[in-house]
Structures are given as C-alpha cells and as structure tokens.
C-alpha cells in the first residue's frame, strides 16, 4: 500500500477550497444581467385556484414578470415525472396524477408553487410575491396515509380512487401462509416509520441562463445527478432539446437523496430565462426547503413473524402503507417497493416472505428517497420484530439473531435479492466485544442504583447498494439503466483527468477516485484531477445516490484504466522493441520482462501524443479511454450496530452512553472518509430515533417548518462513536467494494429504539423518542394512577 493508494487515508484534495471559503456553490454564482425569482406558494393544503391577479405585483419596483402554470402550458412545457413504473397486484400500472411545475387549477400541498415573480433583486421579487392575489377556494385535506385510503377521504387527484397509487406485492404468498399455519409461535408488531425532512445544509438553488444566439440553455443547479436532470428536462418536460441544454451541478452542499430529484423550481428557472431573455436565479430559503424538498420515510406497517419450536424464523409477513405525498417525485414509487421489500429478509435465513405495500397520495410534500431510501424502513421492521421475538422467547437478542443468520453464500432470498457474500457473525461478535456486551448487566445495575434506567439494543442490518444491474432494474420498472460512465484522459505530461458521471456533494470523490488512479498508474495524487457535475464535460452519467459511486462509479473508472494500461503497454512495447505480452506495468513503470529496459508512465504518455516512435497506422495516437460499467449484482454491505442508552426517568432525557458500529463494506479506498460517512449516517439515524419528525396539522399545515420546530441533531445530542470493520471482499465488482454512505442511517434507528424499549421494559416505542414522550412512558404506571 502506498501513502496515497487504495487503503490509505490521504487528507482530502477538495478541502482547501472549503476551509478557505473558496467553494463554488450554486448561490455563489452570478450571471451578468441576472434577475431573481421568488415563488408564490400555496398557503393551503388543498384548494382550487380561480383568478391569479398579478397587476399589483407587476406595478411594483423592479418586477420583470409574473408567470403562472398557464404560461408554462402555453409554451408547451410538460409536467414533472416519476421515472419508475410499479404495477399493482392485479397487473395494472400505478396511477399517477399530473404534476405541473406551476399549479394548474388546483394546489395539493402547502408550498405547492402557484406562480413565480421575477425581479431585478430578490428583495423586490419577494415583496411583489406578497402582492400576487390568488383566488383560492380551500377544500378538505388529508395528510395521514391510512386516513387517505378511507371511503370518505378527500381525493388528492380526482381521477384516482381512494388516493391509491398502487397496491403492490412481493414474495411467496402461499409458502408464507403455510409457514404461519405451521408456526409454533407468531410474533406481531405495528411499526411506524416517522416522516423526515432531509435538510442538507445548502438549500436548493438554481440559475437558468439562455443564449439566444446559440439557443443553448444553461442550468446551474444543486443536483446529485446533473445528466439525469438534463435528460428529464429535455426529453420529458420539453424545456429544450438535450443538446441545447447544459446542466452544471457545481459544489453541492449535501444531498442525502433530496437533490436527486427534478423539482419545479429549476424547471421554472431554465424556462423563464428564455421567456424573459435574462438569467433567472432562485435560492431557496430554509422555510422553502422544509415545505418543498422531498421528504423521507412515513410508513405504517403491520409485521408478523412465524417461528418454529426451535426458535427459528420460518416466515415473515409485512403490510405497509406508504405516504407518497401529493405528487409522485422522481423515484417515489421505487422507494417503498423495490428498495424496501427486497431487503425484508435482513441477515436472516427466512424461507417465506410476503410483503404488501399500498402507495398513497396525501396533501403533503412529495416523499422520495432520503439517505437509505427504503432500506432503513425495511431494517427498522426486521430488527424491531426480531428483537420482539427474542424477548417473547426470553432469549438473549444476540443469540436469537445468531441462530437465524444466513451462513452460506450466495443466498437467494424469497424477495428478489441474491446476497453474494457476508459474514454476519463476525460483525456481531466484534461489535459485542467493542461495547463490552458482557459487562452490560453491571452497568445497568450501576445506573439503577443512581435512579436511572439503562438499556442495550442491537441492529444487525443488511442493505443493498451499488444500484444497479440495468437489466435487473429494467425488469422491475426503472425508466433508466443504472450503470455508470467514466473517461480517463492522460495528458502528454502524464497527469490525468478523470471525467466521471458520479457526483460528489460531500463524499470526497476528488480524493478517493484520485487514489484509485494513483494506485493503478503510479501517478502522484496531486497530478490527478477529478471532473464531475457538468454535462458539457462529462458525456453521461447516472449520478450519486444509493452508495453507488464506489461500487459502480469507480468500477467504470477501473474499466477505463484497464484500457489505458492496455494501450500504454502496446506503445511501450513498440518503444522498447518488445512483444506487448512481455511488458509489465507496476508502480508507474513499464518494464520488459527479463531485461533492464524500462520507461516511466509520463515517458509513455508523451510518446503517445508525439507519435514519432510507433506506427500510428497500427496504434492510434493519444491516450484517452472511456468505459461504461454495468454492475453484475447489487452489493450487500452489512454489519452490527449496538446502542447503549441511559434514561433519566425524572426528565425523560435519553443519553446515548455508547454507540458501536461494526460494518463490512468490502474493500475500502480511504478509511478516514469511510469513517466520516458512517459517523454522519449514524447521526441521521439517531436523529430519526430521538429527535426528528415532520409533522402536518390535520388540515395540512407543516408544523415543523423551521430549525426552531424540526429538531436537527446538534453536537450536544450525540456521543462520539466507536467504529470497527470486518471485511468480505465483494465478488460482484472489480474493486471488491460494497458502499458505506447509508449504513449508519439504516442501522442506527432500530438499535436506539431496541435500547430504549429494553431500558423501559416496554414492547414498543414510536420514533422520535423525545423527552416528553419518554418521560410519559417511564412514568406510565404513576401517571395511570393519578
């Protein structure tokens, strides 16, 4: 291992600009002559729109235009799309209502965009937005997904009965029914997965720019996948032909899923720029992020586990109602279906699984992928019910899990996924050792002696990353293949540029991707430049989400590097008058086997472009190769997180005393960066379990619409984390990587809730475990007596 190669932790190349204030985020960009947009948003969750009177607004200082949904329709601009087709049990396609970027005739959630005011300054646009008179006729709203299925519930889209988008199933129904009939014991649990609001620290922003000379539109936007944005905006929404639309996602301040999607605001900015003939800039305020970023989770589930007399799991049955919000966001339909139910086997050998999921419209913000996307919801179901089963059997939860682990690979689950490799016992053992599991009873006695309650909770999770084999996801309804592309350009001096379709918004790709190149070509890290986030530079890419940038994005780079190496060897062979098969390449040096002849990588790079010394009729000059990599399988990171809490029954405050995470991510490029990803994921998972909850009033007002109301985890809410690794090399990609970006957010919530229910000796506790609710639970007996 070199100091900068695979497995080393060089400090990040991208950090210098961020620690000196020289980052280049979308709001930092200004275009000559730009105007500013402010959106008029619906104050109602559900209303028809009569007249929109913009006369007063248009008369205000600096106002350039006020545009509405009718203007978009007049220009032939289509609505936003959902890119994953899901079919119901009866074979019918999901029912999706129209999703205009600016409302047409009706608003369906608080914050729905109704009009846009464009002015010389943002302050002027904001002032004038207040003066746009919209004639709303409020209608009854429904925010709860279970209620939305009721016979008298208000309809979000008039044409979609019972607000039911799909009624979907997965698994082996008959075998599952048989397993429950034959079961020695059945354990069941009702489980709620609370609605979360992503809150990347950089609010979404967009600048639309139009060059009337060339007809080229440019969109600067806070996107995790600029190429997908270009494809959707051109081919489906009809903003501009694909070759006349450039999308740039510069530095992006966190995504967590929320910046995957193609939203109304950027669609309007790029369209309006052409319409008003000047650049149009919009930067969301945090209140707008709360209202209009796609939210996460929001599931209601009933789960039942069948056990035989020996305490082995024989079946799992799950029925979930998933709140999808008022419109189907870009990948909304895939999250509670193929990204959720396919993981319901967890780490366990379960012969029969049957899952039903109803996707439901409500008058709330659209719900889509948020860090983990479906896998946290699955893991929460599995790890809560497994815990409950162990407790009902009076057994140590670790030993119950151990008995039911999958032990041979590959393992075909009843819910599509074929796990390629893993060693679940190894991570369980290591985590138990790190947290001193055996010492817990002593620590519990000490806490109790001090008037506190102490609990410990496990979460032995699995997830699927590296999304995904194109043929597999295509057969499941994905509108796009989920490969990745890369181009490796070697300059004549031997420095290297890598153009990647992955996008970095905190993950450190400029460092880890360069480490791969450095290791493979023997080039110093500082001589490698990673280029991403611009559709004019990178030909195509699927972007970054689902912890796919290592397993898929870097595999594409590895494939392109293979081609670079092969061609460089041919050139080196000519230069050294040897057979190509005799050329060896190691540590940046080409040698001829059995001789002392050698050339450095920069020498061969220069020769490739000079072209004097090899037959250019046989070998083309230049050294630049590209590759598209389509994965063979999903990857399956797995591990064990254990949380130990102490609860003060007088205040209800839950203190996390210890949090141990042992993960198997396969081969790791940069351990420092991987640890950082795990820390952040755990923090979001603990946030979900203890603090965060997106709440709507019954009439559809968002009650948690600011950082004053929605509890973000702060430094004082969290402990330092203790991490460990176990490793099984992933056989499904050339680098052996699995992915690490979401593990913490997936594993942590059940570990925390298992610890809290253990401490309080109660069966269930709905997230988030806020002090007031924990205090009530801790004092339930006393409160009942009052």
């Amino acid at each position: 291992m070199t100091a900068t190669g695979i497995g080393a932790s060089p400090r990040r190349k991208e950090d210098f600009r961020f620690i000196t204030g020289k980052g280049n985020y979308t709001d930092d960009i200004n275009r000559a002559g730009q105007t500013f947009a402010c959106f008029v948003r619906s104050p109602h969750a559900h209303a028809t729109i009569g007249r929109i009177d913009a006369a007063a607004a248009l008369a205000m200082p600096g106002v350039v235009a006020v545009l509405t949904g009718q203007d978009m329709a007049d220009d032939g601009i289509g609505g936003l799309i959902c890119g994953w087709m899901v079919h119901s049990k009866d074979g019918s396609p999901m029912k999706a209502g129209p999703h205009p970027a600016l409302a047409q005739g009706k608003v369906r959630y608080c914050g729905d965009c109704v009009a846009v005011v464009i002015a010389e300054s943002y302050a002027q646009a904001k002032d004038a937005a207040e003066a746009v008179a919209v004639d709303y006729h409020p209608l009854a709203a429904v925010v709860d997904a279970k209620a939305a299925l009721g016979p008298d519930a208000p309809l979000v889209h008039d044409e979609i009965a019972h607000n039911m988008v799909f009624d979907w199933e997965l698994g082996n129904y008959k075998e599952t029914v048989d397993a429950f009939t034959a079961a020695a014991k059945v354990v069941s649990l009702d489980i709620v997965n609370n609605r979360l609001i992503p809150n990347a620290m950089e609010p979404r922003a967009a600048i639309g720019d139009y060059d009337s000379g060339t007809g080229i539109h440019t969109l600067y936007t806070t996107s995790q996948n600029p190429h997908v944005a270009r494809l959707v905006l051109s081919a489906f929404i009809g903003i501009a032909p694909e070759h006349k639309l450039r999308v740039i996602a510069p530095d992006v301040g966190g995504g967590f899923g929320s910046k995957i999607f193609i939203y109304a605001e950027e669609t309007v900015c790029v369209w309006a720029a052409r319409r008003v003939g000047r650049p149009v800039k919009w930067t969301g305020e945090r209140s707008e992020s709360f209202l209009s970023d796609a939210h996460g989770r929001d599931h209601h589930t009933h789960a039942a586990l069948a056990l035989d007399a020996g305490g082995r799991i024989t079946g799992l049955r799950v029925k979930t109602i998933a709140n999808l919000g008022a419109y189907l966001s870009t990948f909304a339909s895939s999250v509670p279906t193929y990204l959720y139910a396919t993981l319901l086997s967890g780490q366990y050998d379960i012969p029969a699984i049957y899952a039903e999921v109803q996707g439901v419209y409500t008058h709330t913000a659209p719900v889509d992928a948020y860090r983990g996307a479906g896998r946290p919801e699955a893991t929460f179901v599995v790890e809560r019910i497994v815990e409950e089963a162990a407790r009902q059997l009076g057994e140590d939860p670790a030993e119950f899990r151990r008995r039911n682990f999958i032990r041979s690979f590959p393992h075909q689950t009843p819910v599509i996924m074929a796990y390629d490799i893993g060693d679940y016992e190894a991570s369980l053992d290591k985590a138990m050792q790190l947290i001193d599991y055996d010492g817990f009873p002593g620590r519990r006695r000490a806490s109790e002696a001090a008037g506190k309650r102490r609990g410990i909770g496990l979460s032995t999770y699995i997830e699927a990353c590296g999304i995904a084999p194109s043929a597999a996801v295509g057969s499941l309804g994905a509108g796009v293949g989920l490969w990745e592309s890369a181009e490796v350009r070697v300059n004549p001096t031997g420095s290297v540029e890598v153009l990647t379709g992955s996008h970095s918004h905190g993950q450190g790709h400029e460092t880890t991707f360069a480490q791969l190149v450095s290791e493979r070509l023997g080039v110093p890290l500082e001589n490698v430049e990673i280029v991403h986030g611009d559709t004019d530079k990178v030909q195509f890419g699927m972007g970054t989400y689902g912890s796919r940038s290592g397993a898929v994005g870097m595999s594409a780079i590895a494939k392109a590097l293979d081609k670079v190496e092969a061609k460089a060897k041919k050139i080196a062979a000519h230069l050294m008058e040897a057979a190509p098969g005799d050329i060896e390449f190691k540590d940046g040096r080409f040698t001829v086997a059995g001789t002392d002849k050698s050339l450095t990588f920069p020498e061969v790079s220069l020769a490739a472009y000079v072209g004097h010394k090899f037959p250019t009729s046989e070998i083309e000059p230049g050294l630049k190769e590209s590759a598209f990599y389509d994965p063979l399988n999903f990857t399956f990171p797995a591990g064990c997180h254990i949380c130990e809490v102490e609860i003060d029954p007088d205040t209800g405050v839950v203190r996390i005393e210890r949090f141990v995470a042992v993960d198997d991510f396969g081969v790791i490029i940069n351990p420092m960066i991987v640890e950082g990803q795990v820390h952040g994921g755990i923090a979001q998972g603990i946030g979900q379990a203890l603090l965060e909850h997106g709440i709507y009033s019954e009439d559809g007002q968002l009650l948690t619409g600011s950082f004053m109301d929605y509890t973000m985890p702060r430094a004082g809410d969290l402990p330092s984390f203790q991490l460990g690794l176990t490793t099984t090399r992933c056989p499904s990609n050339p680098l052996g990587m699995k992915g690490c970006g979401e593990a913490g957010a997936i594993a942590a919530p059940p570990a925390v809730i298992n610890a809290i229910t253990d401490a309080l000796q109660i069966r269930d506790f709905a997230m988030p475990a806020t002090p007031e609710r924990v205090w009530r639970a801790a004092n339930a007996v006393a409160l009942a007596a009052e």
Partner: protein
Amino acid sequence: MTAVSMTVNGKSVSADVEPRTLLVEYLRENQRLTGTHVGCDTSQCGACVVHVDGVAVKSCTVLAVQAEGASVVTIEGLAKDGKLHPVQEAFREHHGLQCGFCTPGMIMTAVDMIRRHPEGLDEATIRAELEGNICRCTGYHNIVRAIEAASAAMGAKEAAA
C-alpha cells in the same frame, strides 16, 4: 439607501445599501465574499458566522448598518500570508468537513471558542459550545476532534512562545 463603512478582512470598504440589508447579504453580494453561507432563515444553523470586532456573530442576525465602523473578519480573511489558521489545518487533518457548506461557520465559531477558553477545551464543552452550528454530514464526531486538536495545538504554541 444608507451609506455604510467598515473594515472587512483588514480592508476599508464602504457602500450604499438598503437599510434592511443583512450583514451576510452585504458580505456575499456587495463584497462578493461568498465563503460566508446562508443555511437557514431563523438564525439557527450558524453557517454565516463571522467575527465582528473579534467576536463570533451570526451575520444573518445583524444588519449591515449595525456593523458601521466595525472590523469584520470572514473565513476568507482567516489565513494569514498564505498560511492556514491552525483551526483550518485541524479541520482538514481530522476530516472535520464533508460537503463544506457549514464549514466556514464552524471554523469561525471554533476560533472564537478557543479564544474564550485559553484553559483548553474538553469534548463536553466543545459539544455544548457548538449549540449554534448545525452540520448534517459529519455527525460532529470529527469536528469535535478537530477543535480539540486545534485548541491543544494553539495552547501549546502559546506555551512555547
């Protein structure tokens, strides 16, 4: 419009601004110092922290005209003579940043925190002192490590001097 003059990163600057202009807007838009960020609209997140007369201040909570005559230091003014401030160094060394958006505010807060605690900083104090700064990426683990290290390094330097 109102005239406002102040010193920003050691340079005297003046401009005519609308009275309602926030200091952060003045810095970002008039001075084009875009290192100071806006992450919320309720003075909660701390992405906008700068130093006004040597004290950490959320620049979204101050009007530009309130900084009349003051000396303002932003993240761009922290490194001196091409040399990074020890807190900047520590954030890089300990991987105290990921997306980088909260980072300028975190670093300016940390510099102020270390100044107010010459006796040194323990983990509990650092976590309590970070109440006004939100990070969504790091889980704070490495931010705490970076501030501990910077505090120790700066203390050690003073002791050596």
